[in-house]
């Protein structure tokens, strides 16, 4: 939480850019501000149609393919968890194990 944690958790520039882009999409789409740790699907949150929109948006914007177990809701619950998912799949893709 406090500022000296950021270095330890290794927030990279790429992470920040990813986070920003996801926040931009969420705010454009829902017309309200979101925090990086807000649970999007908690009560009064977003619909399953929207969950699928998020999946498609992340795939298109970040050139990744989200399949199988990576589709579990925990990966989409918060901006932070989506950022982690995107970064992990991008790293995997860069490593040459990308899904066609």
């Amino acid at each position: 939480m406090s500022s000296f944690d950021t270095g330890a958790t290794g927030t990279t520039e790429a992470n920040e850019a990813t986070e920003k882009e996801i926040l931009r999409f969420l705010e454009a789409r829902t017309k309200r501000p979101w925090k990086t740790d807000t649970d999007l699907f908690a009560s009064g949150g977003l619909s399953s149609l929207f969950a699928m929109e998020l999946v498609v948006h992340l795939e298109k914007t970040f050139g990744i393919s989200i399949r199988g177990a990576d589709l579990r809701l925990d990966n989409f619950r918060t901006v932070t968890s989506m950022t982690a998912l995107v970064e992990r799949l991008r790293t995997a893709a860069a490593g040459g194990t990308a899904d066609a």
Partner: protein
Amino acid sequence: MRDLPLSDSPAPDRELSPDTQLSSGGENSPGEPAAMVTALVAGEADGWDRAGLLPVALLRKLGAAGWLCAQVPDAYGGRGLSSAAGGAFTAHVGSLCSSLRSVMTSQGMAAWTVERFGTDEQRTAFLPRLTGGDLAAAGFSERGAGSDLSAMTTRVRREGDTVVLDGHKVWVTAAHYADLLVLFGRYSEAGEDDGDAGADDAGEAVAVVVPADTPGVRVTRVADPLGCRAAGHADITLDAVRVPAAHVLGGSPLPLPLLVTTALAYGRMSVAWGCVGILRGCLTAAARHAVTREQFGVPLGEHQLVARHLAELLVAEQTATRACEHASRCWDEGSPEQVVAAVLAKHISAGNAARGAATAVQVLASAGARDGHVVARAHRDAKLMEIIEGSNEMCQLMLARHVLDRTV
């Protein structure tokens, strides 16, 4: 999740009989494939409707050439069509025979579910079967879970290297013909208490590929359906049905709403394009009748009240086409708008088809008032399209939710 016991998947065989030349049909035009289907179907659909049965050999032949799920990528033996090109082909089939088009919707939805949720190994194991002549169906609905799929009670319980399914499904299109059933159910690990169905709305669910000949699977045809009479709708009971755990798509449970929404997205596109086809069949039949049949000394089309029916049919067909084209474009571009666009296209097309078919029957009157006639079939078939893949009301609720989500 390794060692899929399916290494015997048949190699995709693209050969149809030598007299049917197939090509992937270029960009958005179904072209030669459309002509091929016309040759196989036109003139037969009325009889299939009355008999309540499609020729299985024909289904396998179309399936083995990749045409029952034409959007599966080439890598898996599919035709690799875009949503736009697949949609144009679907509409063409829909203009001839909604039962055959329904079988395509089921096969395509099963394939899409495997493609979307399956692991690499599962895609490699199952997709070539779906493009190699095996037939498939997708089962969500249950007696207590129609519009409200969160009430689903079918259980999928993990036991070692296997999973065991118990429960039932109803009205599963094409299940009568299917070799492979893609079934949705609630997931539990061995020993977990799985007693209270529906306790958790967003609960963890899985889609499982179940060979229809697995012991404990019983498939019973739905007798005398109102429409799409040859589509092979069936109820399925599952009594301690055991399949390898490697048949659980993706290998781990996912939220039921996401699983279902994703699978149905394909089905909605397919039904929407199929309804465009229904409208085209109706427009053609009504127009032909209006120019050939005379009453009061002039062709029917010269009576303004009849002419208006033709104008309305054209508007219905064109509006539905545009909505489907838009949704397919979103799909092909990977735009997130595809999700809502598919619901919108399905809702517009199904409603237009139901009204348009009623209009066409009105124009043909007694000439179209017998079972088997293209407009009589359209009238019965289109009505059911307002019920499936999200009924009119469920589509309206989803579209309203979309509006509300975007409004401060």
